[in-house]
Protein backbone atom coordinates (compact mmCIF):
# COMPACT_ATOMS: atom_id res chain seq x y z
CA UNK A 1 0.00 0.00 0.00
CA UNK A 2 2.85 2.35 0.72
CA UNK A 3 4.88 2.03 -2.47
CA UNK A 4 4.95 5.79 -2.61
CA UNK A 5 7.01 5.99 0.60
CA UNK A 6 10.36 6.26 -1.09
CA UNK A 7 9.23 9.03 -3.40
CA UNK A 8 7.60 10.94 -0.58
CA UNK A 9 10.74 10.96 1.49
CA UNK A 10 13.11 11.68 -1.32
CA UNK A 11 10.93 14.61 -2.33
CA UNK A 12 10.82 15.92 1.21
CA UNK A 13 14.58 15.99 1.44
CA UNK A 14 15.46 17.14 -2.02
CA UNK A 15 14.91 20.35 -3.87
CA UNK A 16 11.45 21.17 -5.13
CA UNK A 17 10.85 20.67 -8.82
CA UNK A 18 8.86 23.83 -9.36
CA UNK A 19 10.30 27.22 -10.06
CA UNK A 20 9.26 30.33 -8.17
CA UNK A 21 8.40 31.84 -11.46
CA UNK A 22 8.49 35.57 -11.53
CA UNK A 23 11.55 35.55 -9.26
CA UNK A 24 13.41 32.67 -10.81
CA UNK A 25 13.33 32.57 -14.56
CA UNK A 26 14.87 29.75 -16.51
CA UNK A 27 17.30 30.84 -19.17
CA UNK A 28 15.56 30.38 -22.52
CA UNK A 29 16.67 27.67 -24.90
CA UNK A 30 18.77 29.05 -27.74
CA UNK A 31 16.30 27.97 -30.40
CA UNK A 32 13.16 29.00 -28.59
CA UNK A 33 10.61 30.91 -30.59
CA UNK A 34 9.64 33.97 -28.64
CA UNK A 35 8.50 37.47 -29.29
CA UNK A 36 8.63 38.66 -32.86
CA UNK A 37 10.55 41.76 -33.83
CA UNK A 38 11.43 43.40 -37.06
CA UNK A 39 14.53 45.25 -38.13
CA UNK A 40 12.59 47.87 -39.94
CA UNK A 41 15.64 49.47 -41.59
CA UNK A 42 16.14 46.31 -43.62
CA UNK A 43 12.50 45.68 -44.48
CA UNK A 44 11.67 46.05 -48.15
CA UNK A 45 7.91 46.07 -47.60
CA UNK A 46 7.35 43.08 -49.84
CA UNK A 47 4.37 41.94 -47.75
CA UNK A 48 5.42 38.31 -47.76
CA UNK A 49 5.04 38.11 -44.01
CA UNK A 50 1.54 39.49 -44.18
CA UNK A 51 0.55 36.90 -46.76
CA UNK A 52 2.16 33.95 -45.04
CA UNK A 53 1.18 34.55 -41.45
CA UNK A 54 -1.40 31.92 -40.44
CA UNK A 55 -3.00 34.13 -37.88
CA UNK A 56 -2.88 37.17 -40.14
CA UNK A 57 -1.55 39.41 -37.48
CA UNK A 58 0.90 41.41 -39.61
CA UNK A 59 -0.19 44.37 -41.66
CA UNK A 60 2.29 45.95 -44.03
CA UNK A 61 1.56 49.20 -45.78
CA UNK A 62 4.09 49.64 -48.54
CA UNK A 63 2.92 53.14 -49.39
CA UNK A 64 3.09 54.63 -45.94
CA UNK A 65 6.00 52.42 -44.96
CA UNK A 66 4.46 50.97 -41.84
CA UNK A 67 4.85 47.45 -40.55
CA UNK A 68 2.35 46.56 -37.85
CA UNK A 69 2.05 43.39 -35.86
CA UNK A 70 -0.61 42.55 -33.33
CA UNK A 71 1.51 40.69 -30.80
CA UNK A 72 -1.56 39.37 -29.04
CA UNK A 73 -2.66 37.53 -32.16
CA UNK A 74 0.81 36.19 -32.94
CA UNK A 75 1.07 32.48 -32.25
CA UNK A 76 4.89 32.33 -32.27
CA UNK A 77 4.97 29.95 -35.20
CA UNK A 78 7.89 31.57 -36.94
CA UNK A 79 6.45 31.20 -40.44
CA UNK A 80 7.00 34.87 -41.21
CA UNK A 81 10.56 34.63 -39.95
CA UNK A 82 11.24 31.70 -42.26
CA UNK A 83 9.77 33.46 -45.25
CA UNK A 84 11.07 37.00 -45.04
CA UNK A 85 13.28 37.43 -48.12
CA UNK A 86 15.71 39.84 -46.47
CA UNK A 87 15.68 38.15 -43.08
CA UNK A 88 14.69 41.21 -41.18
CA UNK A 89 12.22 39.36 -38.97
CA UNK A 90 13.50 37.60 -35.89
CA UNK A 91 12.14 36.00 -32.79
CA UNK A 92 13.58 36.63 -29.38
CA UNK A 93 13.93 33.63 -27.16
CA UNK A 94 11.57 35.01 -24.57
CA UNK A 95 7.89 35.76 -24.62
CA UNK A 96 6.43 39.17 -24.41
CA UNK A 97 5.72 40.30 -20.87
CA UNK A 98 2.02 40.40 -20.07
CA UNK A 99 0.38 43.78 -20.32
CA UNK A 100 -2.98 45.01 -19.12
CA UNK A 101 -3.83 46.61 -22.43
CA UNK A 102 -3.56 45.65 -26.04
CA UNK A 103 -0.35 46.92 -27.53
CA UNK A 104 0.35 47.01 -31.21
CA UNK A 105 3.88 46.77 -32.45
CA UNK A 106 3.97 49.34 -35.19
CA UNK A 107 7.14 50.37 -36.88
CA UNK A 108 7.72 52.95 -39.56
CA UNK A 109 10.42 52.52 -42.14
CA UNK A 110 11.18 53.67 -45.59
CA UNK A 111 9.61 51.70 -48.41
CA UNK A 112 12.12 51.15 -51.24
CA UNK A 113 10.31 53.43 -53.67
CA UNK A 114 10.08 56.27 -51.21
CA UNK A 115 13.71 55.72 -50.34
CA UNK A 116 14.76 55.95 -53.98
CA UNK A 117 12.78 59.12 -54.45
CA UNK A 118 14.12 60.63 -51.29
CA UNK A 119 17.64 59.77 -52.26
CA UNK A 120 17.23 61.40 -55.60
CA UNK A 121 16.03 64.62 -54.04
CA UNK A 122 17.86 65.13 -50.77
CA UNK A 123 20.51 62.61 -49.84
CA UNK A 124 20.32 63.32 -46.09
CA UNK A 125 16.61 62.85 -45.76
CA UNK A 126 16.61 59.09 -46.04
CA UNK A 127 18.73 58.11 -43.03
CA UNK A 128 16.84 60.57 -40.89
CA UNK A 129 13.55 58.89 -41.66
CA UNK A 130 14.65 55.32 -41.50
CA UNK A 131 13.93 53.02 -38.64
CA UNK A 132 12.18 54.56 -35.72
CA UNK A 133 11.07 51.68 -33.57
CA UNK A 134 8.19 53.01 -31.57
CA UNK A 135 6.47 52.71 -28.29
CA UNK A 136 6.62 49.34 -26.64
CA UNK A 137 9.79 47.88 -28.02
CA UNK A 138 12.19 49.40 -25.48
CA UNK A 139 10.28 48.51 -22.27
CA UNK A 140 9.92 44.90 -23.34
CA UNK A 141 13.57 44.69 -24.07
CA UNK A 142 14.50 46.00 -20.67
CA UNK A 143 13.15 42.91 -18.98
CA UNK A 144 15.02 40.48 -21.05
CA UNK A 145 18.12 38.69 -19.88
CA UNK A 146 21.09 40.66 -21.04
CA UNK A 147 22.73 37.59 -22.51
CA UNK A 148 21.21 37.74 -25.94
CA UNK A 149 20.04 41.30 -26.24
CA UNK A 150 23.33 42.39 -27.69
CA UNK A 151 24.66 39.39 -29.62
CA UNK A 152 21.25 38.57 -31.05
CA UNK A 153 21.12 41.89 -32.83
CA UNK A 154 24.46 41.38 -34.42
CA UNK A 155 24.34 37.72 -35.21
CA UNK A 156 20.78 36.54 -35.46
CA UNK A 157 20.31 38.11 -38.84
CA UNK A 158 23.32 36.37 -40.32
CA UNK A 159 22.12 33.02 -39.21
CA UNK A 160 18.78 33.54 -40.74
CA UNK A 161 20.07 35.49 -43.66
CA UNK A 162 21.01 32.18 -45.16
CA UNK A 163 17.44 31.11 -44.90
CA UNK A 164 16.35 33.96 -47.11
CA UNK A 165 14.12 32.89 -49.95
CA UNK A 166 11.25 30.48 -49.83
CA UNK A 167 11.51 26.82 -48.93
CA UNK A 168 14.75 25.29 -50.03
CA UNK A 169 17.51 27.49 -48.72
CA UNK A 170 15.80 27.66 -45.37
CA UNK A 171 16.63 24.04 -44.82
CA UNK A 172 20.27 24.78 -44.84
CA UNK A 173 19.92 27.50 -42.31
CA UNK A 174 18.62 25.17 -39.70
CA UNK A 175 21.75 23.03 -39.35
CA UNK A 176 23.88 26.15 -39.46
CA UNK A 177 22.25 27.44 -36.35
CA UNK A 178 22.68 24.18 -34.54
CA UNK A 179 26.09 24.39 -32.88
CA UNK A 180 24.68 27.08 -30.70
CA UNK A 181 21.80 24.91 -29.69
CA UNK A 182 23.61 21.85 -28.56
CA UNK A 183 25.82 22.86 -25.65
CA UNK A 184 23.32 25.15 -24.06
CA UNK A 185 20.52 22.66 -24.31
CA UNK A 186 22.72 20.09 -22.73
CA UNK A 187 23.66 22.25 -19.83
CA UNK A 188 20.02 22.91 -19.19
CA UNK A 189 19.00 19.34 -18.89
CA UNK A 190 21.69 17.95 -16.67
CA UNK A 191 21.51 19.88 -13.42
CA UNK A 192 18.43 18.98 -11.44
CA UNK A 193 17.79 22.50 -10.32
CA UNK A 194 17.24 24.56 -13.39
CA UNK A 195 18.23 27.72 -11.66
CA UNK A 196 19.15 30.51 -13.93
CA UNK A 197 22.85 30.73 -13.36
CA UNK A 198 24.43 27.69 -14.99
CA UNK A 199 22.76 27.59 -18.36
CA UNK A 200 23.34 31.28 -18.72
CA UNK A 201 27.06 30.87 -18.94
CA UNK A 202 26.72 28.16 -21.53
CA UNK A 203 24.17 30.05 -23.52
CA UNK A 204 26.63 32.86 -23.89
CA UNK A 205 29.40 30.56 -25.00
CA UNK A 206 27.09 28.97 -27.49
CA UNK A 207 26.16 32.28 -28.93
CA UNK A 208 29.75 33.18 -29.42
CA UNK A 209 30.40 30.06 -31.41
CA UNK A 210 27.48 30.69 -33.66
Amino acid at each position, binding site marked *: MFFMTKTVFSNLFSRYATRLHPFVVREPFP*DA*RGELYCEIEKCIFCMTCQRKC*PSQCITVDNKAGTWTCDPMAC*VYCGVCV*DNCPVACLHQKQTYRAPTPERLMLSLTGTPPRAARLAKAKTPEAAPARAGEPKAEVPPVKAEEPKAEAAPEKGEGPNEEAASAKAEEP*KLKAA*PAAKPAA*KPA*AKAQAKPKAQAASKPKVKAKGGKGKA
Partner: protein
Amino acid sequence: MARTIIPFGPQHPVLPEPLHLKLVLEDEIVQEALPAVGYVHRGLEKLTEIRDFNQMVQIVERVCGICSMIHAQCYCQGLEEMLGITAPPRARYLRTIWSELHRMHSHLLWLGLFADGMGFESQFMQCWKIRERIMDVNEATTGNRVIVSVNVVGGVRRDLNDGQLRWIGSILDQVEAELKALKKPLIDDYTVKKRTVGKGVLTAEQVYELGAAGPTLRASGVAQDMRMTRYAAFDELVFTPVVETEGDCHARLKVRYRELLASIDIVRAAMRALPEGELAVAVKDKPAGEIVTRVEQPRGELLYYLKASGKKNLDRVRIRTPTFANIPPLLAMLPGVELADVPVVVLSIDPCISCTER
Protein backbone atom coordinates in the same frame (compact mmCIF):
# COMPACT_ATOMS: atom_id res chain seq x y z
CA MET B 1 -32.32 8.24 -2.43
CA ALA B 2 -34.37 9.45 -5.32
CA ARG B 3 -33.13 10.04 -8.81
CA THR B 4 -30.83 13.01 -9.07
CA ILE B 5 -29.30 14.53 -12.11
CA ILE B 6 -25.80 15.77 -11.63
CA PRO B 7 -24.29 18.06 -14.21
CA PHE B 8 -20.79 16.86 -14.86
CA GLY B 9 -18.98 19.58 -16.77
CA PRO B 10 -18.50 21.48 -18.97
CA GLN B 11 -16.86 23.49 -16.21
CA HIS B 12 -15.87 20.95 -13.65
CA PRO B 13 -12.67 21.03 -11.65
CA VAL B 14 -12.00 17.34 -12.05
CA LEU B 15 -12.11 17.55 -15.82
CA PRO B 16 -9.14 18.83 -17.73
CA GLU B 17 -11.44 19.55 -20.65
CA PRO B 18 -14.99 20.84 -21.03
CA LEU B 19 -16.77 17.57 -21.48
CA HIS B 20 -20.44 17.83 -20.63
CA LEU B 21 -22.31 14.86 -19.22
CA LYS B 22 -25.58 14.78 -17.39
CA LEU B 23 -25.43 11.94 -14.93
CA VAL B 24 -28.66 10.39 -13.82
CA LEU B 25 -27.97 8.94 -10.38
CA GLU B 26 -29.76 6.68 -8.02
CA ASP B 27 -28.08 6.22 -4.67
CA GLU B 28 -24.82 7.54 -6.07
CA ILE B 29 -24.95 4.90 -8.80
CA VAL B 30 -25.02 6.16 -12.35
CA GLN B 31 -28.08 4.98 -14.25
CA GLU B 32 -27.49 6.87 -17.41
CA ALA B 33 -25.13 9.43 -18.87
CA LEU B 34 -26.26 11.98 -21.43
CA PRO B 35 -23.50 13.75 -23.32
CA ALA B 36 -23.65 17.21 -24.83
CA VAL B 37 -20.97 18.03 -27.36
CA GLY B 38 -20.23 21.47 -28.73
CA TYR B 39 -19.30 23.64 -25.81
CA VAL B 40 -15.92 24.71 -27.17
CA HIS B 41 -16.64 24.51 -30.87
CA ARG B 42 -14.29 26.90 -32.63
CA GLY B 43 -14.96 26.27 -36.28
CA LEU B 44 -11.38 25.44 -37.20
CA GLU B 45 -12.42 23.27 -40.13
CA LYS B 46 -14.20 26.17 -41.74
CA LEU B 47 -11.10 28.33 -41.55
CA THR B 48 -9.86 26.53 -44.62
CA GLU B 49 -12.04 28.89 -46.63
CA ILE B 50 -9.93 31.88 -45.68
CA ARG B 51 -6.53 30.34 -45.03
CA ASP B 52 -4.46 28.72 -47.72
CA PHE B 53 -3.32 25.13 -47.50
CA ASN B 54 0.08 26.07 -46.08
CA GLN B 55 -1.40 28.22 -43.36
CA MET B 56 -3.78 25.42 -42.46
CA VAL B 57 -0.82 23.51 -41.02
CA GLN B 58 -0.63 25.98 -38.16
CA ILE B 59 -4.39 25.90 -37.82
CA VAL B 60 -4.85 22.15 -37.59
CA GLU B 61 -2.08 22.14 -35.02
CA ARG B 62 -4.37 24.13 -32.85
CA VAL B 63 -7.11 21.53 -32.98
CA CYS B 64 -5.50 19.88 -30.00
CA GLY B 65 -3.33 21.49 -27.42
CA ILE B 66 -1.61 18.26 -26.48
CA CYS B 67 -0.86 16.35 -29.64
CA SER B 68 -0.54 19.36 -31.95
CA MET B 69 2.40 17.89 -33.80
CA ILE B 70 0.45 14.77 -34.75
CA HIS B 71 -2.43 16.74 -36.21
CA ALA B 72 -0.07 18.71 -38.40
CA GLN B 73 1.73 15.53 -39.34
CA CYS B 74 -1.50 13.87 -40.40
CA TYR B 75 -2.56 16.88 -42.41
CA CYS B 76 0.79 17.27 -44.16
CA GLN B 77 0.96 13.58 -44.86
CA GLY B 78 -2.44 13.73 -46.54
CA LEU B 79 -1.58 16.75 -48.64
CA GLU B 80 1.73 15.25 -49.67
CA GLU B 81 -0.05 12.17 -50.88
CA MET B 82 -2.52 14.32 -52.75
CA LEU B 83 0.25 16.35 -54.33
CA GLY B 84 2.12 13.21 -55.27
CA ILE B 85 5.24 14.07 -53.34
CA THR B 86 6.90 12.23 -50.49
CA ALA B 87 8.59 13.85 -47.58
CA PRO B 88 12.32 13.04 -47.52
CA PRO B 89 13.30 10.11 -45.29
CA ARG B 90 14.97 12.34 -42.73
CA ALA B 91 11.78 14.36 -42.41
CA ARG B 92 9.73 11.22 -41.91
CA TYR B 93 12.05 10.06 -39.16
CA LEU B 94 12.03 13.44 -37.50
CA ARG B 95 8.26 13.47 -37.60
CA THR B 96 8.25 10.09 -35.94
CA ILE B 97 10.59 11.29 -33.22
CA TRP B 98 8.58 14.38 -32.46
CA SER B 99 5.26 12.62 -32.63
CA GLU B 100 6.41 9.95 -30.21
CA LEU B 101 7.69 12.66 -27.89
CA HIS B 102 4.24 14.16 -28.10
CA ARG B 103 2.66 10.85 -27.29
CA MET B 104 4.90 10.61 -24.26
CA HIS B 105 4.10 14.02 -22.89
CA SER B 106 0.43 13.46 -23.58
CA HIS B 107 0.41 10.15 -21.73
CA LEU B 108 2.36 11.63 -18.83
CA LEU B 109 -0.08 14.48 -18.65
CA TRP B 110 -2.88 11.97 -18.61
CA LEU B 111 -1.25 9.82 -15.94
CA GLY B 112 -1.03 12.87 -13.72
CA LEU B 113 -4.60 13.93 -14.36
CA PHE B 114 -5.83 10.41 -13.84
CA ALA B 115 -4.08 10.23 -10.49
CA ASP B 116 -5.53 13.60 -9.60
CA GLY B 117 -8.97 12.39 -10.66
CA MET B 118 -8.84 9.74 -7.98
CA GLY B 119 -7.50 12.11 -5.37
CA PHE B 120 -3.89 11.01 -5.57
CA GLU B 121 -2.43 14.50 -5.70
CA SER B 122 1.16 13.62 -4.97
CA GLN B 123 1.28 11.24 -7.92
CA PHE B 124 0.05 14.04 -10.14
CA MET B 125 3.16 16.06 -9.38
CA GLN B 126 5.42 13.08 -10.01
CA CYS B 127 4.04 12.52 -13.50
CA TRP B 128 4.15 16.15 -14.42
CA LYS B 129 7.68 16.42 -13.14
CA ILE B 130 8.73 13.76 -15.63
CA ARG B 131 6.64 15.35 -18.35
CA GLU B 132 8.51 18.58 -17.91
CA ARG B 133 11.66 16.93 -19.24
CA ILE B 134 9.90 16.08 -22.48
CA MET B 135 8.50 19.59 -22.68
CA ASP B 136 12.05 20.87 -22.38
CA VAL B 137 13.08 18.62 -25.24
CA ASN B 138 10.22 20.00 -27.30
CA GLU B 139 11.15 23.56 -26.58
CA ALA B 140 14.86 23.10 -27.13
CA THR B 141 14.45 21.24 -30.41
CA THR B 142 11.43 22.89 -31.98
CA GLY B 143 11.29 26.29 -30.34
CA ASN B 144 7.87 25.83 -28.78
CA ARG B 145 6.68 23.78 -25.86
CA VAL B 146 3.33 22.46 -26.99
CA ILE B 147 2.32 23.69 -30.41
CA VAL B 148 5.62 22.94 -31.97
CA SER B 149 5.04 24.05 -35.52
CA VAL B 150 7.70 21.88 -37.11
CA ASN B 151 5.70 20.51 -40.02
CA VAL B 152 5.29 22.00 -43.45
CA VAL B 153 3.67 20.43 -46.44
CA GLY B 154 6.60 18.53 -47.89
CA GLY B 155 8.66 17.93 -44.80
CA VAL B 156 9.76 19.50 -41.56
CA ARG B 157 11.06 22.92 -40.62
CA ARG B 158 13.67 22.03 -38.05
CA ASP B 159 16.50 19.58 -37.81
CA LEU B 160 18.19 17.73 -35.01
CA ASN B 161 21.96 17.73 -34.89
CA ASP B 162 24.15 15.11 -33.27
CA GLY B 163 24.49 17.03 -30.04
CA GLN B 164 20.77 17.33 -29.72
CA LEU B 165 20.25 13.66 -30.52
CA ARG B 166 22.70 12.69 -27.79
CA TRP B 167 21.00 15.07 -25.40
CA ILE B 168 17.57 13.65 -26.19
CA GLY B 169 19.03 10.20 -25.64
CA SER B 170 20.23 11.16 -22.17
CA ILE B 171 16.87 12.70 -21.32
CA LEU B 172 15.14 9.53 -22.46
CA ASP B 173 17.36 7.44 -20.20
CA GLN B 174 16.40 9.64 -17.32
CA VAL B 175 12.70 9.53 -18.18
CA GLU B 176 12.84 5.77 -18.54
CA ALA B 177 14.42 5.36 -15.12
CA GLU B 178 11.84 7.64 -13.55
CA LEU B 179 9.00 5.87 -15.28
CA LYS B 180 10.18 2.52 -14.05
CA ALA B 181 10.27 3.92 -10.55
CA LEU B 182 6.69 5.06 -11.06
CA LYS B 183 5.37 1.59 -11.77
CA LYS B 184 4.96 0.37 -8.22
CA PRO B 185 3.39 3.44 -6.64
CA LEU B 186 1.16 4.11 -9.61
CA ILE B 187 0.20 0.82 -11.21
CA ASP B 188 0.55 -1.63 -8.34
CA ASP B 189 -0.66 0.57 -5.49
CA TYR B 190 -3.47 -0.87 -3.36
CA THR B 191 -5.61 2.26 -3.41
CA VAL B 192 -5.11 2.79 -7.13
CA LYS B 193 -6.12 -0.78 -7.83
CA LYS B 194 -9.07 -0.39 -5.51
CA ARG B 195 -10.21 2.56 -7.58
CA THR B 196 -9.54 1.20 -11.07
CA VAL B 197 -9.73 -2.58 -11.21
CA GLY B 198 -13.09 -3.73 -12.51
CA LYS B 199 -14.30 -0.19 -13.15
CA GLY B 200 -15.81 0.68 -16.52
CA VAL B 201 -15.28 -2.75 -18.03
CA LEU B 202 -15.83 -3.25 -21.74
CA THR B 203 -15.24 -6.51 -23.58
CA ALA B 204 -13.37 -6.82 -26.85
CA GLU B 205 -16.63 -7.24 -28.79
CA GLN B 206 -18.16 -4.20 -27.13
CA VAL B 207 -15.27 -1.86 -27.83
CA TYR B 208 -15.08 -3.09 -31.38
CA GLU B 209 -18.78 -2.60 -31.99
CA LEU B 210 -18.87 0.79 -30.32
CA GLY B 211 -15.96 1.89 -32.46
CA ALA B 212 -13.50 2.74 -29.71
CA ALA B 213 -10.04 3.93 -30.63
CA GLY B 214 -6.57 3.95 -29.16
CA PRO B 215 -5.76 2.78 -25.66
CA THR B 216 -9.46 2.36 -24.89
CA LEU B 217 -9.60 -0.21 -27.66
CA ARG B 218 -6.31 -1.88 -26.91
CA ALA B 219 -7.03 -2.20 -23.20
CA SER B 220 -9.85 -4.53 -24.11
CA GLY B 221 -7.61 -6.80 -26.11
CA VAL B 222 -8.04 -5.51 -29.66
CA ALA B 223 -4.60 -5.04 -31.17
CA GLN B 224 -5.28 -2.13 -33.43
CA ASP B 225 -2.97 0.80 -33.76
CA MET B 226 -2.63 3.11 -36.73
CA ARG B 227 1.11 2.86 -36.45
CA MET B 228 0.63 -0.61 -37.84
CA THR B 229 -0.34 1.07 -41.13
CA ARG B 230 3.34 1.98 -41.40
CA TYR B 231 3.12 5.70 -41.98
CA ALA B 232 6.09 8.04 -41.46
CA ALA B 233 9.10 6.03 -40.35
CA PHE B 234 7.08 3.11 -39.08
CA ASP B 235 7.60 1.31 -42.37
CA GLU B 236 11.19 0.70 -41.32
CA LEU B 237 10.93 0.68 -37.54
CA VAL B 238 9.81 -2.34 -35.57
CA PHE B 239 6.46 -1.71 -34.02
CA THR B 240 4.17 -3.87 -31.93
CA PRO B 241 0.99 -2.48 -30.41
CA VAL B 242 0.59 -2.56 -26.64
CA VAL B 243 -2.40 -4.65 -25.63
CA GLU B 244 -4.04 -5.51 -22.33
CA THR B 245 -7.04 -7.74 -22.00
CA GLU B 246 -8.99 -6.83 -18.84
CA GLY B 247 -10.85 -3.92 -20.43
CA ASP B 248 -11.17 -1.93 -17.20
CA CYS B 249 -9.71 1.37 -16.10
CA HIS B 250 -6.66 -0.35 -14.70
CA ALA B 251 -5.98 -1.97 -18.07
CA ARG B 252 -6.22 1.43 -19.75
CA LEU B 253 -3.78 2.77 -17.21
CA LYS B 254 -1.41 -0.08 -17.94
CA VAL B 255 -1.69 0.34 -21.71
CA ARG B 256 -0.75 3.98 -21.49
CA TYR B 257 2.04 3.29 -19.08
CA ARG B 258 3.50 0.60 -21.31
CA GLU B 259 3.06 2.76 -24.40
CA LEU B 260 5.24 5.34 -22.71
CA LEU B 261 8.05 2.85 -22.46
CA ALA B 262 7.38 1.67 -26.01
CA SER B 263 7.56 5.25 -27.26
CA ILE B 264 10.95 5.68 -25.64
CA ASP B 265 12.17 2.67 -27.61
CA ILE B 266 10.67 3.99 -30.84
CA VAL B 267 12.36 7.36 -30.40
CA ARG B 268 15.65 5.65 -29.64
CA ALA B 269 15.37 3.41 -32.68
CA ALA B 270 14.39 6.33 -34.90
CA MET B 271 17.32 8.38 -33.65
CA ARG B 272 19.72 5.53 -34.32
CA ALA B 273 18.40 4.99 -37.82
CA LEU B 274 17.97 8.67 -38.66
CA PRO B 275 18.95 9.00 -42.33
CA GLU B 276 20.86 11.97 -43.67
CA GLY B 277 19.40 14.24 -46.27
CA GLU B 278 16.96 16.95 -47.08
CA LEU B 279 14.36 18.18 -44.64
CA ALA B 280 11.65 19.08 -47.08
CA VAL B 281 10.76 18.98 -50.70
CA ALA B 282 9.45 22.08 -52.42
CA VAL B 283 5.77 22.25 -53.18
CA LYS B 284 5.11 23.60 -56.64
CA ASP B 285 1.53 22.69 -57.45
CA LYS B 286 -1.78 23.37 -55.82
CA PRO B 287 -3.43 20.30 -54.34
CA ALA B 288 -6.36 18.68 -56.10
CA GLY B 289 -8.32 15.58 -55.27
CA GLU B 290 -9.70 13.83 -52.28
CA ILE B 291 -7.88 11.90 -49.62
CA VAL B 292 -8.23 10.23 -46.26
CA THR B 293 -5.22 9.85 -43.98
CA ARG B 294 -4.93 8.29 -40.59
CA VAL B 295 -2.33 8.41 -37.88
CA GLU B 296 -2.20 7.20 -34.30
CA GLN B 297 -2.65 10.03 -31.90
CA PRO B 298 -2.09 9.46 -28.15
CA ARG B 299 -5.82 8.95 -27.73
CA GLY B 300 -6.26 6.76 -30.75
CA GLU B 301 -6.90 6.88 -34.43
CA LEU B 302 -6.97 10.34 -35.97
CA LEU B 303 -8.54 10.69 -39.38
CA TYR B 304 -8.29 13.56 -41.83
CA TYR B 305 -10.42 13.86 -44.89
CA LEU B 306 -9.11 16.49 -47.32
CA LYS B 307 -10.70 17.68 -50.51
CA ALA B 308 -9.15 20.16 -52.88
CA SER B 309 -9.67 21.38 -56.40
CA GLY B 310 -6.43 23.03 -57.43
CA LYS B 311 -7.01 26.26 -55.58
CA LYS B 312 -4.86 27.61 -52.82
CA ASN B 313 -7.66 27.01 -50.36
CA LEU B 314 -8.84 23.49 -49.72
CA ASP B 315 -12.50 22.72 -50.28
CA ARG B 316 -12.94 20.70 -47.17
CA VAL B 317 -10.97 19.62 -44.16
CA ARG B 318 -12.77 17.09 -42.05
CA ILE B 319 -11.18 15.91 -38.84
CA ARG B 320 -12.35 12.92 -36.91
CA THR B 321 -10.66 12.74 -33.56
CA PRO B 322 -10.31 9.68 -31.34
CA THR B 323 -12.21 11.15 -28.40
CA PHE B 324 -15.23 11.51 -30.62
CA ALA B 325 -14.97 7.80 -31.33
CA ASN B 326 -14.52 7.07 -27.65
CA ILE B 327 -17.64 8.82 -26.41
CA PRO B 328 -20.04 5.95 -27.22
CA PRO B 329 -17.84 3.47 -25.37
CA LEU B 330 -17.71 5.90 -22.45
CA LEU B 331 -21.49 6.06 -22.34
CA ALA B 332 -21.55 2.29 -22.30
CA MET B 333 -19.08 2.19 -19.40
CA LEU B 334 -20.85 4.63 -17.13
CA PRO B 335 -24.14 2.97 -16.14
CA GLY B 336 -23.72 1.05 -12.91
CA VAL B 337 -20.64 3.00 -11.88
CA GLU B 338 -20.51 4.74 -8.51
CA LEU B 339 -20.46 8.52 -8.63
CA ALA B 340 -17.07 8.52 -6.95
CA ASP B 341 -15.70 6.48 -9.83
CA VAL B 342 -17.11 8.69 -12.56
CA PRO B 343 -13.98 10.86 -12.81
CA VAL B 344 -11.85 7.75 -13.02
CA VAL B 345 -13.98 6.17 -15.73
CA VAL B 346 -14.37 9.39 -17.70
CA LEU B 347 -10.67 10.13 -17.56
CA SER B 348 -9.84 6.57 -18.52
CA ILE B 349 -10.68 7.32 -22.16
CA ASP B 350 -8.39 10.35 -21.96
CA PRO B 351 -11.05 12.73 -23.21
CA CYS B 352 -9.76 15.57 -25.35
CA ILE B 353 -12.78 17.71 -25.92
CA SER B 354 -11.13 20.62 -27.61
CA CYS B 355 -10.16 18.36 -30.49
CA THR B 356 -13.49 16.58 -30.52
CA GLU B 357 -15.31 19.85 -30.98
CA ARG B 358 -12.64 21.57 -33.09
